């Protein structure tokens, strides 16, 4: 990692050392890692990447962790699947799905957590913590177990049972809070001031954590043969992932792995029950009014998205769009993706695919564009969402007669 120098405030530009700092002391703006891209570009990057591990760490030259002592459960290196059948349904001729359901704990959060805990361990932290809508909790608990760290995770109490049990199994202390994610997030921000010896991955380690999402863009470009897609569709919760996907493509252009001037349209997806960024986009304002979330897409239910402005800005400048879909559209999209491509997404994936469909039907995605939709979490985590929509075809006695009676009319189909 030859290029890491320091941190810089994204709002006012003040510089800070590369420590466990996350907001600017002056204006509270988020801090970002600064790399020396000229130094990085001198490396034989393509070879270093192609000889690297089958995880996000193949891109370690562009990640903020020195050395090789990473906390690596194998996050990343997930399939990029050509989605011909879904594309035909939506009228898109060159559609691809980045299937990030196939991460160690079933969501893209493994990318950010692997980076965050690697850095946290280097900085000397012994306790990993987080504010989570569920996926992050799963991932922090698993990576902490692998690293021999204690984990304390804070979640809203109404999460899906798979996400709660799928965290507790790793031995983490799961603290369920009587409130929504924004309440959890506020409490964790306050706890960070009181317990600075805990590594809250998405609070005081956030600067490093967020960088992990860039690997989504790195992988897509590598999997397309070091080419950028024309258009990507990314779900928006806090807005961090979307801005980092954009940054990932830009960085590849800066270090010579994509042509200079590469431009990718970035579109965002939200649930109508929690759509502060989509609302600002559709209202053509840059003021993001916080909302009280009410949606089955709990992993995206952040009513006060801290990176919302940046996500909005990236989308507008790239020529993309943002839209939102209802709970029913989310479920329909989960089922459509599953039945056309064999990929089972959680509700956030339903939001992405539902929004993709909406943008395509509005003509906001060109049918000939090479489009990549990011499906970021596994459907087994949110079975509740589809339990009323799909189920057994028939319940029969173990006899030929019973089968013929209940299923006879479906044999010839």
């Amino acid at each position: 990692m030859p290029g890491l120098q320091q941190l810089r405030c994204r709002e006012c530009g003040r510089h800070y050392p590369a420590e466990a700092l996350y907001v600017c002391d002056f204006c509270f703006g988020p801090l970002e890692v600064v790399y020396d891209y000229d130094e990085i570009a001198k490396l034989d990057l393509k070879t270093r990447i192609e000889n690297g591990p089958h995880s996000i760490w193949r891109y370690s030259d562009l990640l903020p962790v020195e050395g090789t002592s990473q906390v690596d459960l194998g996050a990343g290196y997930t399939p990029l699947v050509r989605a011909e059948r879904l594309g035909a349904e939506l009228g898109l001729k060159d559609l691809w799905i980045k299937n990030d359901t196939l991460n160690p704990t079933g969501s893209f959060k493994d990318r950010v957590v692997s980076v965050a805990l690697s850095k946290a361990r280097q900085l000397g932290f012994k306790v990993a913590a987080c504010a989570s809508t569920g996926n992050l909790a799963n991932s922090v608990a698993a990576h902490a177990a692998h690293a021999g760290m204690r984990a304390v995770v804070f979640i809203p109490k109404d999460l899906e049972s798979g996400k709660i049990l799928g965290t507790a199994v790793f031995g983490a202390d799961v603290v369920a809070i009587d409130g929504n994610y924004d309440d959890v997030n506020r409490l964790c921000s306050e706890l960070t001031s009181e317990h600075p010896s805990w590594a809250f991955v998405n609070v005081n380690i956030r600067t490093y954590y967020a960088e992990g999402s860039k690997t989504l863009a790195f992988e897509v470009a590598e999997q397309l043969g070091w080419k950028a897609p024309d258009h990507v569709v990314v779900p928006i919760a806090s807005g961090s992932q979307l801005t980092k996907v954009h940054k990932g493509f830009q960085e590849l252009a800066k270090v010579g792995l994509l042509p200079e001037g590469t431009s990718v349209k970035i579109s965002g997806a939200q649930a109508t029950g929690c759509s502060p960024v989509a609302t600002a986009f559709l209202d053509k304002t840059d003021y993001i009014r916080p909302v009280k979330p009410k949606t089955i897409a709990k992993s995206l239910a952040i009513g006060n998205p801290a990176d919302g402005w940046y996500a909005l800005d990236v989308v507008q400048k790239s020529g993309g769009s943002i839209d939102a879909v209802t709970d029913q559209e989310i479920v329909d999209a989960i089922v459509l993706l599953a039945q056309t491509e064999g990929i089972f997404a959680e509700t956030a994936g339903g939001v992405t695919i539902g929004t993709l469909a909406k943008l395509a039907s509005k003509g906001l995605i060109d049918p000939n564009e090479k489009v990549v939709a990011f499906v970021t979490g596994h459907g087994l985590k949110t079975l509740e969402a589809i339990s009323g929509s799909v189920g057994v075809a028939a319940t029969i006695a173990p006899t030929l007669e019973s089968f013929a009676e209940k299923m006879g009319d479906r044999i010839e189909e």
Partner: protein
Amino acid sequence: MSAKVRIPTQLRTLTNGQPEVEVEGASVGEALKALDSQFPGMGERLFDENGALRRFVNVFLADEDVRFLEGLETPVQGGQTLSIVPAVAGG
């Protein structure tokens, strides 16, 4: 009205390390202005050049985001706690 204000780490250099201070003010805006006169330098950290809260500064009154209330105009009852929290992304 007297209110408690919880101070995040980033601003404790201005309060001599105190995590919580008392201020007077009938509204959230008045209480934060009082905070600035008591601890000079606080104002420019919290407010932008137009006098609005900076966009990465969240203020909570009795654990509710003041943007869901009446913003800086929100009345403060005696003994309530104001909390200043930096916005943090990631879910």
